[in-house]
């Protein structure tokens, strides 16, 4: 059978449709415009961060430091990490898709605080520009994205201070966004919409925003103290003045471990939206998914010291953090089994969105397995701060979050633009990315175990071949963005018209025009009580699931 979705807004009113690309450069208060602003801005930084990554991989094709000066290498490394985390993944998985989708999902016409929302976005471009221009003025920060003192106190101050200011701005942006999401999800729900009827991405964003609001202020405080140490010569973290460098690490990771969930929980949510639509099946185990997100949030707050197993932590602390970290695998595992079960018995369209989502599952499982290994103190003591860790976190951050971002772009592009992407080009993009990614980061596990530390510009010549292999993978990854970009631009101009609901989705963003009008719906917001009501035996309930006849809506 085919499901039929009542589509009330077939004819978007001309008056409600905002026009002109200039609105993307404006202080727009429309959550959809802000979402796209986050996405495009994030992607530009992704390209910059990617160029920096290419520079790193070129340097590492030979075992000696010959491509750039050593201190420049450390600056490039620091910028790469900071840009990818704070200007690409965090803003895109949270800000871009969160802003675009959450108001639809709760049945609202915008976010709770539209002006705060615009402020949150407009903090990002200046912060990013500042960070990048610091390279051209006095040299960028060169103490890594972790900025451990005393290195960060002793390297040139100008770059480090600019780094701190820009991370503070980005952290502020993230906190504003987090508050906005929590309030929107809890308070702007359309009457009649129960919490347990929300699409999974709402739960993911609720959990993530709780983490953002609880942990980002700690990072901000820590960096402010660090800046005092640098400019005012206080001694919080400076051992020469009686400070303690380990305290910085505790505070830093108290934020930065949750930060990894801030990067990946929203991605979990997005996958949970994408798979059911293209598998034509309900999301498997909705309730366990919700509880596992919340379990990850709670556990994620008490595992930070697994980044400090070699810092001279007392044995009891090592044990506690090993156990807490290992147990995160249980709720995480539940989600993966649930996604596989969602695939099982479906009618899966093998399109680009599904391929990238399944690529994510495969990559992330590997990253999770190495994560569990790293959580074991005796294991970590050998591979900490080596290329093994580099491999682990790229498997979860790139193989996880970035794959999901691509999947999401393929999935929601028709909604964003009203045009379809070229699927063959998309599948080609997936193939090159998947091969390039695994070729780049797979061999790095071996490098780390066999003696290559991370963050080095020169290394033991015995590792030359494997590093070159990795660089070839990086080259493939760089090339893979070309078909993607071509596809995006070409389809925006010449792509076939998508229609309102090309994937026959049931979640509310599909029940309006593509692109949606200002304030999202022409009439009332639909009440979607079964966002995953797909499936053959369920004709009646599918019909019931969209019921836009009752209730008032709150905008």
């Amino acid at each position, binding site marked *: 059978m085919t499901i039929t979705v009542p589509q009330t807004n077939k004819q978007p009113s001309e008056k409600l449709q905002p026009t002109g690309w200039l609105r993307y450069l404006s202080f727009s208060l429309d959550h959809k415009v802000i979402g796209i602003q986050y996405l495009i801005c994030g992607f530009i930084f992704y390209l910059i961060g990617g160029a920096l990554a290419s520079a790193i991989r070129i340097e590492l094709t030979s075992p000696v430091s010959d491509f750039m000066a050593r201190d420049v290498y450390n600056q490039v490394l620091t910028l790469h990490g900071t840009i990818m985390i704070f200007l690409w993944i965090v803003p895109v998985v949270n800000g871009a898709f969160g802003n675009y989708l959450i108001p639809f999902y709760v049945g609202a016409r915008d976010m709770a605080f539209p002006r705060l929302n615009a402020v949150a976005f407009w903090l990002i471009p200046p912060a990013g520009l500042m960070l990048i221009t610091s390279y051209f003025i006095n040299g960028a920060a060169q103490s890594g994205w972790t900025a451990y003192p*005393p*290195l960060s106190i002793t390297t040139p101050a100008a770059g480090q201070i600019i780094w701190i200011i820009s991370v503070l701005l980005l952290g502020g942006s993230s906190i504003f966004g987090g508050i906005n999401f929590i309030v929107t999800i809890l308070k702007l729900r359309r009457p009649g919409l129960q919490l347990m009827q929300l699409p999974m991405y709402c739960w993911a964003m609720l959990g993530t925003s709780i983490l953002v609001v609880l942990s980002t202020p700690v990072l901000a405080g820590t960096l402010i103290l660090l800046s005092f140490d640098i400019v005012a010569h206080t001694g919080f973290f400076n051992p020469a003045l009686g400070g303690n460098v380990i305290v910085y690490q505790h505070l830093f990771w108290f934020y930065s471990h949750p930060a990894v969930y801030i990067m990946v929980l929203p991605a979990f949510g997005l996958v949970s939206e994408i798979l059911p639509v293209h598998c034509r*099946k309900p999301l498997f185990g909705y309730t*366990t998914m919700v509880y596992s997100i919340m379990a990850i949030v709670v556990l994620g707050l008490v595992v930070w010291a697994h980044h400090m197993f070699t810092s001279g932590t*007392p044995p009891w602390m090592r044990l506690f953090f*090993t156990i807490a970290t290992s147990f995160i695998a249980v709720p995480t595992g539940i989600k993966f089994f649930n996604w596989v079960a969602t695939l099982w018995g479906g009618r899966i369209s093998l399109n680009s969105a599904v391929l990238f989502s399944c690529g994510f599952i495969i990559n992330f499982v590997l990253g999770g397995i190495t994560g569990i290994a790293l959580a074991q103190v005796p294991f970590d003591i050998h591979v900490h701060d080596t290329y093994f860790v580099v491999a682990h976190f790229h498997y979860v951050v790139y193989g996880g979050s970035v794959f999901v971002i691509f999947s999401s772009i393929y999935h929601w592009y028709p909604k964003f633009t009203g045009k379809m992407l070229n699927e063959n080009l998309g599948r080609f993009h997936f193939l090159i990315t998947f091969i390039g990614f695994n070729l780049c980061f797979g061999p790095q596990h071996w490098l780390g175990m066999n003696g290559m*530390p991370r963050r080095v510009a020169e290394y033991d010549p015995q590792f030359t071949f494997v590093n070159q292999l990795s660089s070839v993978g990086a080259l493939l990854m760089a090339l893979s963005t070309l078909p993607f970009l071509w596809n995006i631009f070409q389809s925006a101009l010449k792509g076939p018209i998508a229609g309102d609901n090309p994937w026959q989705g049931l979640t509310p963003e599909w029940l309006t025009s593509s692109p949606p009008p200002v304030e999202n719906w022409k009439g009332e917001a639909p009440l979607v009580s079964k966002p995953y009501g797909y499936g053959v035996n369920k004709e009646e309930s599918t019909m019931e699931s969209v019921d836009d006849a009752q209730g008032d809506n709150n905008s």
Partner: protein
Amino acid sequence: MPSPSAIFILILSVALIAGGIWAGQNINLLPIDASINAPIYDELFKVLFSIGTILFLGILGLVIYSLIRFRRRPGQVGDGLAIEGNLPLEILWTAVPAVVILFVGLYSYDIYDRMGGMQPLAHNGHHQMEKTEERIWGGIGSGTIDSSTGDAIAPLPVDVTAMQFAFLFHYPQGDIISGELHVPVGQPVTMKMESKDVIHAFWVPEFRLKQDVIPGQPTIMNFTPTKPGRYPIICAELCGPYHGGMRSTVVVEESKDYQAWYSKNAKPTSSETSDV
């Protein structure tokens, strides 16, 4: 009576588990083991590698199988099965990973204990008086050799100083200062490490050991080398532009070679300076 497909699934699972165990036992990805705790580490590695292989190939297989078996064929319309969940199944895949994690945790605790991780961190041999004064934080391992291997051998104390971008090794016995770490095979070594500037880390991949070397906060690391040879000492914590070049060598020697090196470099107890 079990259906043919059930038997097939059973065979596949057994093959997967056997394959994982085989891979753990036979695929060696680590460098040679040259300290007492390296083989213990490798034991843990094998178990984790087996579990990881089984899990990874299992999920990979399931995903690829589902994508092929349940793909939408041309001309097909309509939905998949309306399965919203299955509580027993979900309990199963909560319980099984929990048990596996519990096993991994207990096992790695045991490994950690055997490596000496749970022994009180005493820096045997010297600085007895300072011990109560200073906060000394620990790496791994005790200064005394595992009693099961025979009589306790007195550990060799070494003071390690790290700085941008070198390690210095000071032997209190004999007052030797060296840029290379010389140690006799089979004797436990106990190192007290401190950094002069930024954080560094002392790593010997063949020993499977690493410990940060921190300014203002001495740390301790103990190990017992088991195979003569020259192994790299690598700084593993970003410490500045020449971080990648911050390396040294640990020379594990037979007792008599070590004695020869020692007597050549040791200072006569009361004289002023001699060759360093």
